[in-house]
């Protein structure tokens, strides 16, 4: 009977939906007659598998290869830092001005600073931490931009 073929095709399609959507049950009730009716019930008890969107594997492996081929940096504390470089002791966001609408930054290139003068702010955990100049001298370089994130050890300024 042609109806059997149709039914088989429907079952195959439903099975496919069941698998793809990770459903547990699909119940279909179709009545033909004066008033056609269709009732569908689907059931899913298990969570769908997590969505996976891994990054391109080639990207990862070439990055790793390049990183392993690069000479190791070693312990930065033994590196010879340029004299007068002020490095961050904190992780956070550096601000060169006392507030966003302050007319000028704490310091400018060429400016003389005393030990203990505020030179910038680092924000961490919603707290503004004033960074003070560790020594007196002239500001030779400002190495961070206003609003730039900094890590432990990031060179902030050079003060000679």
């Amino acid at each position, binding site marked *: 009977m042609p109806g059997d073929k149709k039914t088989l095709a429907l079952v195959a399609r439903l099975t496919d939906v069941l698998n793809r959507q990770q459903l547990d049950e699909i119940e279909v009730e179709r009545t033909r007659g004066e008033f056609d009716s269709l009732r569908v019930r689907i059931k899913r008890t298990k969570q769908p598998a997590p969505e*996976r*969107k891994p*990054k391109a594997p080639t990207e990862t492996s070439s990055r*790793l290869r390049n990183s392993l081929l690069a000479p190791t940096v*070693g312990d930065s504390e033994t590196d010879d830092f340029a004299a007068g470089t002020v490095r961050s002791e904190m*992780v956070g966001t550096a601000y060169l001005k006392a507030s966003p609408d302050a007319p000028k930054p704490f310091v400018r290139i060429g400016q003389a600073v005393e030990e203990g003068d505020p030179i910038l702010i680092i924000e*961490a955990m919603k707290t503004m931490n004033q960074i003070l100049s560790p020594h007196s001298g002239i500001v030779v370089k400002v190495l961070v931009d206003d609003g730039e*994130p900094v890590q432990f*050890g990031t060179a902030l300024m050079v003060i000679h």
Partner: protein
Amino acid sequence: MFEKVLIANRGEIALRIIRTCKELGVSTVAVHTTVDQDSMHVRMADEAVCVGRPASVNTRESYLSERNIIAACEITGADAIHPGYGFLAENSEFVEKVNEIGIKFIGPSAEHVRLMGDKIEAKSVMRANGVPCVPGVETGLESIDEVHGAARFLGYPVIIKATAGGGGRGMRQVKSPTELEQAYVQARQEAHAGFGDSRVYIEKLVTNGRHIEIQVLGDGRGNSIHFGERDCTIQRRHQKLLEETPSPVIDSRMREEIGEICCKAISSLGYEGAGTVEFLYQSGKFYFIEMNTRLQVEHPITEMVYGVDLVEEQLRIAYGHELTFSQEDLECRGHAIEARINAETVPGFVPCPGRVELFHSPGGLGVRMDSNLYNGYTIPPNYDSLVGKLIVHAVDRSAAIARLERALGELIVHPINTTVPLFQQLIRDERFHASDYNVHWLENWIEEIGEKLRG
């Protein structure tokens, strides 16, 4: 799922977490100290933030710097922190700070971390929830008379422990009433010096037990499942060296029973995330020791026999998903063993840091090597000496032991001394095969075998 997770740890566990994040398409942020900038976790993560110098004994720098680690989340836009184990993993104040600032701590609530961190409170809550505990007296130990009374009530031998303690400090075993007073005074002094809290409690000493721990997962809404036990009886000075699952001394009926008890307890707490309920097991009885509110070092053996990724489950639960499995879905298949590869010279276990000229990882069927080593890596002297975990999985215990022996033979960490010779001797010992040992056995065995372990 989370967009970006910061891993507040280093070494093999940081890598372990990064690997699952990659598979889930979650970006990763590594944190590191100045001596760890060449570490594998820094190379493997999408981003890295230097958080300080290595910590000296009394400072809270680098991996313990709450401020720098939270700030690292802020500057990288990470929406969750995975703490790994150790460092900030069981620090309830940190959990509170992280959650307050709107970053998700991947683990239980601050309240549950605090509760389980207080050994006495943990015990009384677990006892109230039907978990079997070591008989003990926790209060009213202010005078030596009260201590004598408590010890008499429990029956000798007893053990005095620091309320705020852990790791063997402030602990004293007492075999008879004549030793009690001195032990009590010393334990209090040690507890005060070590933890700034001289309170102690007293328990019946379970002398010849095995260390059995139950892995649990809770969804934070009162549902939980367990992944059977891990047998961590092979340890030295409270440091685990080799773990296996299933335990050779636990049958499936006992597993289900104790697993169900643990699930019931953590469900009633509304516990969220991965946890481990640790027991001493002796003569068919379980005695609760403590609950670790984090991922354990030895979690991979559970993953192997149950075919699950516990880190993925942690991430999913933390994101608010329901548990992926029901208890009926879980079936323990085969046997898994983990050997901890420490950069240490046996038999003295003296740390052996230094440059790794040649690293070769074992492989093949049923072998998993979780390690942060690579050729040319310098193992810094500043941290824990664990440099890898060799995990094997096979159909049964004897096949797993044979596989472990085969894999140990393939592992090269030249010229660093490691714990490999210890395992090679151990798995040839008949007593190990017979699994006839308790938590003290390995220490005596090391003394006995001593010189054989060199090289």
